[in-house]
C-alpha cells in the first residue's frame, strides 16, 4: 500500500520548547492510521505541523510524494487535507448550515453542495439535519464533534486529520461516532486519527503509530497491537503510567 502522507525526521519547536524530536511515520492510502500516545506525547503538535499551523523546524512532511512542510496552511488544505482539531474549531455564532457551507470551498451557496453527499452526511449524523438552522455554539459536545467531522467530509477530501474525537464524550455518543467513522472508513477514505481511547482505536485502525516524548516509539499494523498483549502492555502501560 503506497503512503499518501509521510513524515521524515520532523522536529517542531514552539517558542523555546522542542516538542517533536524527529517524528517518522507513514499514512497508507485508503487506510485509517491511529496515532496513539499519552498526553503531551506530541500527537496534536504532529497534526498541527502537518497542517502548517506550526512550522517544522527540521525534517520533511510529504503528501502524495511532494513536500508540503514549507507551505502555508490554506495551501495545504487546498491539497485536499481536512483537519478536525481537538477543540473542534466550530464557529459558534454560525448555524450548522453556515458551518458546512464554509467548509465546502467550491460552493457559493448551500444548493451548490452535492445533495447526495449532504444526504449521506445526514445519514451519518442525523442531528445535523435536525439542528440545521441552529447556532452551532448551542449544540451539545457530541453534536459539535459530529459537525466538525461533517465539515471535514462535506466535500471529498484525500486525507482527514482528526484529533481526539472521543474526548469528553459520553460512551453512548462515542459508540455513535465509531459507527459513523466505520461507515466513513468503508468508503476507503484515508484518515490519520489521534486517540487515547484504545477501544476506538481498535475498532477503526488499520495501522498504528505510538508516540512518546515527541518521538514515534512503535509503528505497525493495528491488528498486531490488538493481538499482542505484551506489546499492548508495554506501549499502553507506558501511556497509563505516565498519567499517574
Amino acid at each position, binding site marked *: 500500500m503506497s503512503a499518501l502522507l509521510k513524515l521524515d525526521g520532523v522536529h517542531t519547536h514552539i517558542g523555546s520548547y522542542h516538542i517533536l524530536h524527529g517524528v517518522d511515520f507513514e499514512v497508507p492510502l485508503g487506510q485509517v492510521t491511529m496515532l496513539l500516545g499519552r498526553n503531551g506525547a506530541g500527537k496534536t503538535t504532529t497534526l498541527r505541523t502537518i497542517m502548517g499551523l506550526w512550522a517544522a523546524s527540521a525534517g520533511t512532511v510529504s503528501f502524495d510524494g511532494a513536500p508540503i512542510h514549507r507551505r502555508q*496552511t490554506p495551501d495545504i488544505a487546498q491539497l485536499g487535507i481536512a483537519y478536525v482539531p481537538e477543540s473542534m474549531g466550530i464557529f459558534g455564532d454560525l448555524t450548522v448550515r453556515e458551518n458546512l457551507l464554509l467548509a465546502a470551498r467550491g460552493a457559493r451557496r448551500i444548493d451548490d453542495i452535492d445533495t447526495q453527499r449532504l444526504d449521506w452526511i445526514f445519514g451519518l449524523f442525523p442531528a445535523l439535519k435536525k439542528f440545521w438552522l441552529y447556532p452551532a455554539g448551542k449544540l451539545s459536545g457530541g453534536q459539535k464533534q459530529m459537525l466538525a467531522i461533517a465539515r471535514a467530509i462535506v466535500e471529498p477530501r484525500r486525507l482527514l486529520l482528526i484529533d481526539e474525537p472521543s474526548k469528553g464524550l459520553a460512551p453512548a455518543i462515542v459508540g455513535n461516532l465509531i459507527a459513523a467513522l466505520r461507515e466513513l472508513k468503508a468508503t476507503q477514505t484515508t484518515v490519520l486519527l489521534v486517540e487515547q481511547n484504545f477501544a476506538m482505536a481498535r475498532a477503526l485502525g488499520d495501522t498504528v503509530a505510538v508516540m512518546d516524548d515527541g518521538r514515534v516509539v512503535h509503528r505497525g499494523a493495528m491488528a498486531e497491537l490488538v493481538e499482542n498483549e505484551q506489546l499492548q502492555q508495554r506501549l499502553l502501560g507506558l501511556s497509563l503510567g505516565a498519567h499517574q
Partner: protein
Amino acid sequence: MSSAAIPKASFDWLPLALVPLLALLALPLIGSPSTWLTLTIAGLAMGMIVFVTASGLTLVFGLMDVLNFGHGVFIAFGAYVATTVFAGMADWTSVDSLLRNLVAVFAAMAAAMALAGAIGWAFERVMVRPVYGQHLKQILITMGGMIIGEELIKVIWGPEQRPLALPEALRGSILIGDAAIGKYRVLAVAIGAFVLAAMLHVLVRTKIGLLVRAGVQDREMVEALGYRIRRLFVGVFVVGSALAGLGGVMWGLFQQNVIPQLGAQVNVLIFIVIIIGGLGSTLGCFVGALLVGLLVNYTGFIAPVFTAFASIALMVAVLLWRPQGLYPVANR
C-alpha cells in the same frame, strides 16, 4: 428541508431592546414630546454616523486581533476631502436644489471613501503588517500613524479649522408638529441605515461575509479550511477605512467644520462604542453606537455638565452587566 423539524434558535433581544427603552426612559425626564422627538432623531443620526465610522474598526479587531488606534486618521482624511470636493462644487452646494446638493454630498462621500480606502491599504501594508500579534507595538505604531496623518493634513489643508457648511437644501429643519427635525439628520439616518443594510447583506447573505464572521471567531480554523485570511483581512481593512472616510464626511457635516485633530477626538468615542458592543460584533457596534448617540443627546439637554461623562458611564454600566460587551463574539 422541513422547517417544522428545526428547533428555534433564540435571538438575544435584550441589548437591542435597550435602544427603545432608553428613549422611553428619557421621555418623562425631558418632558416635552416634541423636544424628545428632536433629540431622539439627533441621537439616532449621531449614532448612525458613529456606527459607520466604528464598524470597520470592530471587524478589523475581531478578524485579526489588531488594535488600530490610527483608525481616526481615515475619518479626518474623509472629512477634509469633503471640504475640497465642496470647494470645487460650490455651484452645486450653494444652490437651493436638493438633487444638486445630494450629488455634491455623494461625490464628496465617494472621493472620501476612495482616498481613505487607499490610505487604509497603505497603512495596513506599511504599519500594521509588521506588528501582527503584538498588541503593544500595534498601539504605539498606529498612534504614530495617527500623528503622521494629522501632520499630513496640516501640510495639505493647513492647521486651522475649516468650515464644512451643509449644502443649501440640507440646512434647516422639517417641522413635525412642534418638533424640529434637522434635514441633514434625516439624511444621516438614511445613509446609516443603508450602510447597515448593505453590511448585514454582505455579512449574512454572502460567502465573503460568512468568511469574515467565521474569521472573527477563529481565524486559524478558517485558514485550516483552505481560505487565505490575510487577503480577507486586507479587504476588510480597506473597506473599514473607506467606511471611516464616509463617516468622516458625515461627522464633518454634522459638526459643520473640521479640524486636523478630528480623528483623535472621534477615536475615543468609537473605541467606547466597539467595547460596549462586544469587540468584533457588527450588531453590537450598531446597538452601542445608537445607545451612545441617544444618551449623549439626552444628557446634553437634561444635564449638560455630564455630557462628556455619559458615554463612559454607559460603557462602565454595560461592562458591569456584560463584561464581554452587549453581543460577545463566540470563541474569542
